[in-house]
């Protein structure tokens, strides 16, 4: 029986590759949008005025304190009752972007606050504008602390994207779920699903570890 199911699984491989593409598309779009929003919010959170800082802090807590599955249900089921009709795909991208942005915001704010305050004072004393300080003094140094957890966050993003299968986006996990109804060999089907995620995530995890080691070396060399 195993051999028969294995052949069946090989035949549905194109279906799995379609799912892989969907996972890559959903996470890729959310990665770009989430990074941009996350960086902007992080910079505001680390400097900015008190009210904005409080609002961003409350938003981050709300996103961190609730499961992603609940967030995606809220976006997918509640926005339509407010008059905003969403397909599953844009709902998934919005939910993932929102999640990623809130985590990246914390990472960026932490990285900026880790830059010694003397650097900012020296930059002010040299007559650099606020934008120049950020662009040439603060961010280049903060990137050292930001990069490793940022790549780690991208791994989490790819893994969290599996949850969007719950609202019917046909990503790798959903393909596995559909296939297992036809080929009742859960270990084999979800072994393949896991393998496809592994192919994306494992290099990213290693990149994160590599950056961590490398950044540690450069900062001690200073």
């Amino acid at each position, binding site marked *: 029986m195993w051999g028969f199911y294995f052949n069946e699984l090989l035949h549905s491989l194109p279906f799995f590759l379609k799912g892989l593409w969907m996972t890559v598309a959903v996470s890729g779009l959310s990665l770009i949008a989430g990074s941009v929003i996350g960086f902007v919010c992080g910079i505001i959170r680390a400097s900015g005025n008190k009210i904005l800082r409080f609002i961003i802090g409350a938003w981050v807590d709300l996103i961190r*304190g609730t499961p992603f599955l609940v967030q995606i249900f809220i976006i997918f089921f*509640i926005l339509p009752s407010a008059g905003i009709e969403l397909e599953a795909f844009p709902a998934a991208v919005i939910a993932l972007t929102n999640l990623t942005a809130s985590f990246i915001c914390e990472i960026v704010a932490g990285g900026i606050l880790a830059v010694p305050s003397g650097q900012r004072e020296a930059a002010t004393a040299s007559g650099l504008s606020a934008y120049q300080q950020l662009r040439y003094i603060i961010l280049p140094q903060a990137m050292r602390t930001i990069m490793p957890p940022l790549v780690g966050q991208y791994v989490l993003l*790819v893994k969290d994207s599996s949850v969007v299968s719950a609202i019917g986006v046909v990503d790798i*996990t959903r393909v596995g779920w559909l296939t297992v109804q036809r080929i009742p060999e859960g270990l084999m089907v979800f072994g393949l699903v896991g393998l496809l*995620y592994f192919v994306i*995530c494992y290099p990213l995890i290693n990149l994160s570890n590599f950056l961590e080691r490398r950044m540690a070396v450069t900062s001690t060399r200073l």
Partner: protein
Amino acid sequence: MLETFNFRVIWEYMPLYLKCFQATLWLSAVSLLGAILVGIIACAMRLSQSRVISRIAGIYIESIRSTPLLAQLYFFYFGLPSLGLMLPEWVTGVIALTLNSGAYYAEIIRAGIQAIPYGQIEAGISSGLSYFQRMRYIILPQALGMTIRPMLGQAIVLVKDSSLLSLISIAELTRAGQLLTSDRFMPAEGFLTTAAFYLIIYYMLKGFSTWSEKRLIFREAH
């Protein structure tokens, strides 16, 4: 959306929510204990002198960390029956959560142990302490102080991850929201109440994390 928010229905469903809140709490508690135990064992194996044992633990940790929990959950949910193991859903859920968080706990504990300067261990050896004495009196007390925050952070992640168990029809908080949504078609009431319950757990754990950190710093100063 909010002007039609129906608190009466939430009140009507409160017994269900409380029952499901309890279920989330004990499912997370059991998985948390299991995960810490698995984490300690996997970490001990990872740091073992034997190449083979260390490699086995490495493969376990890496494969868990580079695949999503939902795929792991389905792997056990659809896979164990095909091995002839018919377990109740909640057991499958607890196994998946335990093995998933266990890998992360292994990494957290390892980071804590490796952060202790090697001189401390050498000092322990030259004072004639046995391996277990060194672990009990030198390594673990320091490692615990350093890892308490990431450990509580992972506990928060675990509670949120337990929401995925609703997808294999275990009655917990997210499932309660789904039930209210499908019974009365009131997604806003259903999922916002669910989110509120998760936020209670989140703020409690977060508060405990801040409190324990202050306390540990206080103890170190003395």
